[in-house]
C-alpha cells in the first residue's frame, strides 16, 4: 500500500516562527502536493511538484515556500508564521506524468499559530 507520512499531526507555533512541515511518500510517485483545508473552503492547493527540484504555485502560495530535494520528500515552509495560517495541512502524492491517477493523502498536520 502507498504510504504518505506527514511528520507532525499537531503543531503549535508562535507568530513569526519558521515552520517546517515534512511529507514523505514511499511509492516513487512523481507528483506531490500541499493543500490547506479550512471549513467551507475545501482543499486549496498551495504548491505542487511534478519532479525533483520542480515546483509550481497553486492557488494560495503567499506566505509559503516548498522544497523537493529528493523524490520521496516534499517540505512546506512557513517563513514567518501568522495567525491566518492556522489550518489543517494535507500532503498528497500521485503516480505518473499525466492528468490521471488517484491522489494518496497523508493524515494531515493541524497547525495552530498563536
Amino acid at each position, binding site marked *: 500500500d502507498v504510504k504518505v507520512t506527514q511528520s507532525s499531526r499537531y503543531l503549535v507555533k508562535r507568530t513569526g516562527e519558521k515552520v517546517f512541515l515534512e511529507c514523505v511518500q514511499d511509492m516513487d510517485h*512523481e*507528483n506531490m*502536493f500541499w*493543500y490547506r483545508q479550512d471549513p*467551507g*473552503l*475545501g*482543499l*486549496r*492547493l498551495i504548491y*505542487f*511538484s*511534478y*519532479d525533483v527540484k*520542480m515546483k*509550481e504555485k*497553486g*492557488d494560495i502560495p503567499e506566505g509559503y515556500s516548498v522544497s523537493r530535494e529528493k523524490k520521496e520528500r516534499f517540505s512546506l515552509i512557513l517563513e514567518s508564521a501568522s495567525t491566518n495560517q492556522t489550518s489543517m495541512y*494535507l500532503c*498528497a502524492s*500521485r503516480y505518473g*506524468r*499525466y*492528468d*490521471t*491517477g*488517484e*491522489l*494518496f*493523502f*497523508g*493524515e*494531515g498536520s493541524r497547525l495552530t499559530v498563536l
Partner: protein
Amino acid sequence: GQQVMQIPQYQHVQEGEDFTTYCNSSTTLSNIQWYKQRPGGHPVFLIQLVKSGEVKKQKRLTFQFGEAKKNSSLHITATQTTDVGTYFCAVPYRSGGFKTIFGAGTRLFVKA
C-alpha cells in the same frame, strides 16, 4: 486557473433518504475524480470518470459524468450513518505538470 463549483455545501438527511452532490466546470474536463473524507480523516479516492456520459456504480453510490464532460454527480441511495463525511470532486489542471484542483466539498449529515 481551473475552478470547479460543487453544491450543495451541506446536506442533512434522514437515514434511508437519498443524497446527491453536483460538480460543475466552465471548461471541458479530461476526467473527474471523487473523494470521501470521514470526520477527522483524510480524503480517500472513490472513483475516476473519463468518458462522456459515463455512469459507474459502487454498491449504493452512483457516479455520472455529463455528456459535455463539464459536470458530474454523486448519488447515494438509501443513506446510512456510515456515509457521513465530506464528498469532494477533483479535476486536473495543466500548468507545467498536472495539478489536481478540488471542489469545496459537500458535507453529508445522516440522522439515524
